């Protein structure tokens, strides 16, 4: 692992966050949420800082980070694409949509395209089952997506 340099300004922001939680180790998950929203992901260097701020072991922080699927240690693409694989979406063909995304973007789930534009992930139910199958690009929800519609969605962000 090569060391990456974390932005001083963001680090300062993170330390403020920890302080706002009284540097209480019980708030680790809240702190990780905030950290991920500041940095976009949770690189090892960042976890070391958090461990120090909350006075817990780095192993503990890493243990928590790897337990929860919401936390990620790899930077997401500029437009993170998430395909819902909840039951409602599954029975309405979400797998085929996922397959099409893999084909179009030429990446696997959990990967980011070489140009850093897109990353692909799966999630379980955003609760928009009425629109199944559902795809999220960033915060935007696309409902009733068919494999044919995949190219159009990607194209929307490719310009």
């Amino acid at each position, binding site marked *: 692992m090569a060391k990456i340099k974390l932005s001083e300004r963001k680090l300062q922001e993170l330390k403020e966050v920890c302080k706002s939680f009284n540097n209480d180790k019980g708030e680790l998950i809240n702190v990780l949420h905030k950290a991920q929203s500041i940095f976009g992901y949770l690189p090892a260097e960042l976890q070391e800082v958090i461990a120090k701020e909350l006075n817990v*072991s780095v*192993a503990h922080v*890493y243990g928590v980070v790897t337990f929860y699927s919401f936390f990620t240690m790899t930077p997401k693409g500029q437009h993170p694409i998430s395909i819902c694989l909840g039951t409602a979406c599954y029975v309405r063909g979400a797998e085929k949509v996922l397959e099409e995304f893999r084909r179009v973007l030429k990446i696997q789930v959990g990967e980011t395209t070489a140009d850093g534009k897109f990353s692909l992930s799966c999630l379980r139910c955003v609760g928009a089952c009425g629109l199944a199958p559902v795809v999220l690009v960033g915060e935007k929800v696309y409902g009733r997506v068919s494999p044919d519609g995949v190219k159009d969605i990607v194209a929307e962000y490719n310009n």
Partner: protein
Amino acid sequence: MEMVKLTIDGKPVEVENDTTILKAAKTIGIDIPTLCYFQLKDMNIENRPGGCRICVVEVVGRRNLAPACSTNVAKDMVVNTHSIRVLNARRTVLELILSDHPAECLTCAKSGYCELQTMAQQLGVRELPFQGAQSTYRKDTSPAIIRDVDKCIMCRRCEMMCNDVQTVGALSAVNRGFMAVVAPAFEMNLEKSPCTYCGQCVSVCPTGALTEVDHSRNVINSLADPTKTVVVQTAPAVRAALGEEFGLAPGTLVTGKMVAALRRLGFNYVFDTDFAADLTIMEEGSELLDRLTRYLKGDQSVKLPILTSCCPGWVNFFEHNFPDLMDVPSTAKSPQQMFGPIAKEYFGKKLGIERKNMIVVSIMPCLAKKYECQRDEFKVNGDPDVNFSLSTRELAHLIKLANIDFNSLPDEDFDNPLGASTGAAAIFANTGGVIEAACRTAYELYTGKKLEKVEFDELRGLESIRHATLDFNGLPINIGIAHGLGNARKLLEDVRAGKSQFHAIEIMACPGGCIGGGGQPFHHGDSEIIKQRAAAIYREDAGKPIRKSHENPFIIELYKEFLGKPLGEKSHHLLHTHYFDKSAGTFVDE
């Protein structure tokens, strides 16, 4: 406490109501098998995650099976520990565990000592019905410990030891589900973690997931090299436990047989770390007295309490966690590391053996010693003062390898001069022993009086943190003792906060002291074994003609002939060390 009556396997039993089914069953001779469950009674150590599900039993009226290790008894409970349903479930669960475990028993370092292997045998597993993916991970070899966590069964004992008992925080459960495993942060190497190499994780691991780095092959090679003079030193705790490896009762002292075996293995000189322990007392005891006298005279620059520094796990711990207190511990090297330069610079020179032609091997109850002897500050032009450190277990293995029938060996004596020792050195193996040895000497040197009774009973025992006030001729000396790093942390935090009342503190990283070290024969959670070893050590002390370090004639001779005086220039150079701030340690390469 209220008593409840229940029935287990048709037998009535009456126990206190907060008893687990497992313990209740034990009282009437029913041994429910367990795997993740682990307990060191009297030391407040218990691992009860209820995770392996091997100990499940049927409780009449309950929907599902109950884990005996973590289900309390209840009034009129009817328990069946070996119904068809239980046996099927228990075997299936074990088959599942085995289906995600490499079937490498023949070549596994833990073969013969593995609790999973024993369980498979006990439950009569004869085939592996479940095939499928196995969870595999990167192997990791650190200076002392090998992690092969493909063999991890998630019993969580190591995690409990590393965090709850030792508060080291090198290990944590990581990932989730099938890929869940215990690992350092980022699944990086232990070497990059705050691991102290105390080895307690290894000593409780039921399988071959955590084992020590084996140096016995290096030792065999050295012994076979005619150009080398191979010198061995044996730590005090080894003689009280080595016999266990050869079927002898725990607490059997095998000092003489051990010496005989080492000689048969081909070591040129069989010396004793006990000698170096006596030397440690001279240096550390003098340092204590020096600091104490200056402190009493009002010298503001003096730091008290003084902390013992014999234990390398403990040294690693404070380098990682208390770098701000680095001037508090004694600067005296550990006995292993005092022995090295004395062997090479004094004994070797005396015999005209060139440094590069002398190999010093240590036999230790400890895994941190493997790391300690590789530290750069203990090398001269790259040549370590102590070349290899073997654990008690590795020595047993070496003896077996050399076809030596250990139990029929005659008792033999250590070689001189570095084999002579006192009772004070022997008790270094037990928690409280180092400080007791130091006090025997410090008292006599400080007061100028002879001790009427050399045993300081108030310093003995297995309580996690102990303290005692000794009367040094009207001067009350407050002594603190902690074994287990979690307990040490508590004392250190008091020191950091300026609240510590102690003049001197002894710390040993392992529960029970070196007798419970990470390199000792596996006790499998039987704390009685540790108690027997401790008793044996005190017997060794009591049987010695000389019981105070400063009376060891060879030590006196050493100072006269070579070192000069304790804390002198030569001592400073050869027998004292300094510490490093490792708190900034990072997993990420620069």
